[in-house]
């Protein structure tokens, strides 16, 4: 929005991108970036800098399981990348470099660095119509270092533990998956084939995301105790465990359990059809039939491993009078589809479009009636995605060791998806971000880390 005065509160400004160029080892925190998210970053004039440093594209995905023979594999067939893998610190520095450049220009953007939000007061919140209307008084933002800013709009972009959300008193819900995502950078025995791999193991999905040359990144969802064990392993031992997890075959016990669950196949097929309907609108063909492949062997874990708890969470509202929540401050999802950051960028894009549309019509950018349009657009989409990912997680990733969990359903699901050409095409298109409707991308995996902790008061400093 031209002419807007924007303040950005950033407790920990990242280093400049140039300082990262010489780094050889990849950041263990990486994100899968859909082409649609790439376009959003490009529109902010950030993507070029990221691609310039390192955001390798991947052109092929394979998702398969350890029990049974179900798999999905597809490539982008010469129509560009299915996605990109970008390191967290590179993304953060590239975005922040752009903010630095804007702050030094005549953009009206100002950085409040090294401080946090101390207090936030918003107009009274009254659900439903009530007599005695609350006026649209400007938000009052006070930083820990004592600065006070009046703002027409406060954007909470400060992650899953959003202080903005808490200070505003917006309620939230959460579902703990009782799993941790173990992440590490790995070196492979050969080229990474620009392929993203994900295998559903009894304990949870293991993903291998291609970086550059022979480098890749893993995200492995496991129970917390198992995460602690994996993290404590010496590098060569962890590499061996990763290789074993990609290679292992299901036990006879699993196979027997699978056979006894035949009746569930139909159930999943119905689910797949529903998923297909949800993804309608993504019509272009990007797939071709490919035989199942085998990921390259991991030869080395570069640096250590880290882990983070997996949870699905959401704010009860994404908007109130003079407040908008975006990214993890509004919602988190299971990382199995690598959608956390992409959803957050989608929020930012939707909010920006809403504000621009409103400003054009002289509407107050912090007004509830305008922000509800953002809330309505995004909350429905994100909740659809959350539900879809939760279902996929339950169906595909539930442990085969747990009694009553139909592993055959997963096999059937994989086979059904692979057989259903149109669905597979839609999945690929969705994975590429060409479909904005709410549905799940089943492939590509990355840790859903918090967005950069930005909180953005919008407007007047008077």
């Amino acid at each position: 929005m031209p002419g807007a005065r924007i303040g950005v509160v950033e407790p920990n400004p990242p280093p400049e991108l140039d300082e990262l160029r010489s780094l050889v080892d990849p950041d263990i925190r990486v994100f899968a970036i859909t082409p649609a998210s790439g376009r959003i970053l490009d529109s902010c004039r950030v993507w070029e800098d990221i691609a310039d440093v390192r955001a390798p594209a991947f052109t092929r995905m394979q998702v398969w399981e350890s029990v049974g023979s179900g798999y999905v594999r597809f490539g982008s067939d010469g129509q560009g990348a299915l996605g990109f893998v970008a390191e967290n610190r590179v993304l953060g520095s590239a975005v922040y470099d752009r903010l630095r450049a804007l702050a030094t220009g005549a953009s009206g953007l100002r950085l409040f660095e090294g401080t946090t939000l101390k207090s936030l007061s918003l107009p009274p919140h009254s659900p439903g119509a009530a007599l005695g209307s609350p006026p649209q008084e400007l938000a009052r933002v006070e930083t820990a270092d004592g600065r006070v800013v009046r703002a027409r709009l406060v954007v909470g972009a400060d992650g899953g533990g959003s202080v903005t959300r808490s200070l505003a008193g917006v309620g939230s819900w959460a579902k703990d998956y009782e799993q941790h995502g173990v992440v590490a950078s790995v070196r492979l025995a050969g080229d990474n084939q620009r392929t993203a791999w994900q295998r559903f193991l009894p304990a949870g999905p293991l993903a291998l995301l291609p970086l550059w040359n022979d480098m890749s990144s893993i995200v492995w969802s496991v129970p917390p105790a198992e995460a602690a064990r994996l993290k404590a392993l010496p590098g060569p031992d962890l590499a061996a465990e990763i290789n074993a997890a990609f290679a292992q075959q299901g036990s006879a016990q699993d196979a027997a359990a699978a056979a006894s669950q035949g009746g569930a196949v139909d159930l999943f097929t119905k689910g797949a059809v529903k998923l297909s309907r949800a993804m309608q609108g993504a019509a272009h063909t990007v797939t071709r039939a490919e035989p199942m492949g085998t990921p390259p062997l991991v030869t080395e874990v570069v640096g250590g491993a880290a882990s983070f708890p997996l949870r699905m969470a959401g704010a009860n509202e994404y908007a109130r009078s003079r407040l908008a929540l975006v990214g993890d401050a509004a919602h988190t999802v299971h990382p199995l589809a690598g959608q956390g950051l992409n959803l957050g960028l989608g929020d930012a894009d939707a909010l920006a479009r809403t504000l621009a549309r409103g400003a054009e019509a002289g509407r107050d950018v912090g007004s509830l009636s305008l922000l509800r349009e953002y809330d309505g657009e995004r909350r429905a989409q994100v909740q659809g995605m959350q539900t879809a990912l939760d279902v996929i997680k339950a169906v595909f990733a539930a442990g085969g060791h747990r009694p009553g969990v139909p592993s055959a359903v997963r096999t059937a699901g994989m086979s059904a998806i692979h057989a259903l050409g149109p669905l597979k095409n839609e999945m690929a298109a969705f994975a590429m971000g060409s479909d904005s409707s709410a549905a799940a991308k089943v492939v590509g995996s990355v840790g859903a880390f918090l967005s950069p902790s930005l909180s953005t008061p919008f407007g007047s400093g008077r």
Partner: protein
Amino acid sequence: MLRAKRVAINAMASRAVALRAASTSTQNPDEISKFSKLARLWWDEDSAAFGALHRMNQVRVPIVVEAAIAAEAARGDVPTARSGRTIRPLARTSVLDVGSGGGILAEALARVGAIVTGLDASAENVAAASAHSVIDPDIAERVFYEKLLVEDLAAQLAGAVEGSVAEEPLSGAAARAPAGGFDVVVSSEVIEHVNSPAMFVAALAACLRPGGVLVMTTITRTALSYAGAIFAAEQLAGLVPPGTHDFAKFLRPDELSGLMVDAGLVPALPEPIAYNPITGRWSRGGGRVVMQYALSGTKPLQ
């Protein structure tokens, strides 16, 4: 269905609360007081009814902006080249908003740069609008409200033009009016409630500078709007006394166009405005006028 129905009610409610107390010399005092208790509700966006009215700015502000820029271009006095989008397309434009209510449209026009004078026949509305306008410093310096009838302002402006000595001191609105009249006069969702639409339009036109443009929005007279008016009256029982919607007062586009011609204006083609009760959003265009529409008329340069 329940939701759809509720939203439909909201749409109707927005029509009802849009009842401004603006009137002509033949005004009914009851018309004014019955909306006073609504004054404090103007800015409650959580209320379904007022939320719809706030969202209506999404279509009516661009309509006013486009009409203002077209009139300015026709006058040939475009002060600066307008290239691309700007957040203040109405900078340096004087606007008179007749029947300004709580200031929902006036503030939006001020936000896109206009200097706005809002007239309303209800002191409570003027008080509510004035109180709200100080919240945002950018707005406070660009809006001014007064309890005044438009024909009284027109008479004062005419007196000023003719150089006669006014018996009473000029109103604030008249004192603030640019010499020769306002660049733009708007009256949104008002004329359907005045007793003498012809006098009303004539007074609006009299406040315009030569080459200025009048932009009005209202509701046409169709079976649908008839049903809507009755529906709204029923649903708003308690908020608005029965009988506030006088269907006979609704004007079809050709009728309003005729009133503009009679007032010496050159009317443009009417533009339909539609409310989608499912999404709660307003849109422009769409062919035929079924419910709301906008109509603008330009005052010849002479």
